[in-house]
């Protein structure tokens, strides 16, 4: 546990200390606010639904950007050798890194809270939907982070890690979308719908927390974290 905490602190600090961390944060917040306010002014109504529905697309750029350095940078600098000669298990290092990215995502989401709070003053927003939306965003984000971590474990180039992470997230998001599903025979379509990252997000974001969706996200997270653990263990 102490080992995980040490890695967590180092990683989390590096987000808050690097200028890149702030740039990502600002870009994310500007885009999130813009998406929200656009709905507000154009349609002239407070729609949290459309705000949360755009979240997966925003994450598609934001999350690979915060995860790309996770292993690629350690490889590039050679510090991976320091990391893996400390008396820590590989899994402790991995979990510390994963949690730090999740915490950074959590902060980014927290900073969008003024939007719904403003909304609460202006109208009568659906609280259940907002809580569900944030929860869904957190689950989806965690799944993206584990995918991004996996992508970063494959290479020592942050750019490659970014592109790879975004592509895998995009592909896994896309397979469950309606316009893909209609092209498939129904039996396969239902499997794809379950595999797609997006469909599970929609139902949580609607405020419906189904254990199947939660289990789905936890499996995706576990699966990609496990893969990246295998890769960092084998690829020295």
């Amino acid at each position, binding site marked *: 546990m*102490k*080992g995980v*905490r*040490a*890695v967590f*602190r*180092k990683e989390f*600090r*590096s987000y808050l*200390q*690097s200028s890149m961390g702030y740039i990502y944060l600002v870009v994310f917040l500007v885009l999130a606010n813009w998406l929200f306010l656009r709905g507000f002014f154009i349609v002239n109504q407070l729609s949290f639904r459309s705000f949360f529905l755009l979240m997966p697309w925003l994450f598609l750029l934001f999350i690979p950007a915060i995860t790309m350095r996770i292993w690629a940078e350690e490889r590039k*600098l*050679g*510090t*991976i*050798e*320091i990391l*893996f*000669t*400390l*008396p*820590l*298990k590989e899994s402790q290092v991995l979990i510390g890194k994963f949690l730090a990215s999740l915490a950074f995502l959590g902060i980014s989401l927290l900073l969008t809270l003024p939007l719904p709070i403003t909304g609460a003053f202006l109208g009568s927003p659906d609280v259940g939907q907002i809580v569900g939306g944030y929860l869904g965003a957190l689950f989806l984000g965690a799944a993206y982070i584990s995918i991004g971590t996996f992508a970063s474990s494959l290479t020592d180039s942050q750019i490659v890690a970014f592109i790879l992470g975004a592509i895998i997230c995009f592909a896994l998001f896309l397979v469950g979308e309606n316009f893909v599903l209609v092209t498939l025979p129904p039996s396969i379509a239902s499997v794809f719908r379950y595999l797609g990252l997006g469909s599970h997000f929609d139902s949580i974001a609607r405020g419906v927390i189904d254990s199947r969706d939660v289990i789905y996200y936890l499996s995706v997270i576990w699966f990609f974290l496990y893969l990246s653990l295998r890769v960092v263990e084998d690829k*020295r």
Partner: protein
Amino acid sequence: MIEVNDLVKTYGQVRALDGVSFSIRKGEIIGFLGPNGAGKTTTMRIITGYLRPDGGNAVVAGYDVASYPIEVKRRIGYLPEDNPLYMDMQVREYLEFIGEARGLEGSELKESMDRVSEIAGISGVLKRPVGELSRGYRQRVGLAQALLHDPDILILDEPTSGLDPSQIVEIRGLIKELGREKTVVVSTHILPEVSATSSRVIIINKGRIVAEGTIEELERKAEKGETLYAVFRDGRADLERELSSLDFVEDFQLVSVDGDEFKFAIKPRGDEDIREKLFDFAVEHNFKLLEIWRERATLEEVFLQLTTEE
């Protein structure tokens, strides 16, 4: 303290280690010597638990590295090759991270940090980002990191590479000092390093151990026979051409160049004393012979003999 049995490691087609075995007793300072690509770094990475060998095993402080990596890593302080560091961390933050990861906390962590900052001479730069430090100071940070948990065993992979001469002397002094109470393995391909610090030398070449022993033992073991050294001024190209045509010279090599002065190591054919002949040769061809002397095998030559012949 460290025992290595029949290590084999292959990277793709390259066999980096081909049956490496040696053992190191508690309290020794070992110079781990070999030319580029000999397998020093690979061996050290296996001992520290960073790499898994394809064959053989390493035992550190009684623990098999493959089975008890955490126990082994607790007992080793390691300075990897090229001293990798997190460039945007402050020195203090970096040491804190290493300390926490090694289970140090609170006042214990603080005392350890004070102690190693003192030893490594980095107390004045603790607030600076690592990336802004000079190379010498980075090396000290790397050393401080390796010493933080006061390990019994120190593994240092080319700790003086890239340092200026006075820094080299300092680091060597530090290593010697540390060697009083710790088991130290220092890899290098620079010979003076070995004679300056080590109690024993292990020489590796092409993934195999080719010799080990104290410096005197190795020098004594070396093939008898002398080398003649001669320093000339100017006319290097002519000189090299003429030297290769001499019948009393079996082989020669340019050892060093100092401005317009060239130092050659010359191997006579047979046991003959060729100093006079060489002098006459220089006079005859108008070469400016400045110095000439004989030397018996030094560690340098032992090393060259062991690592160049097939």
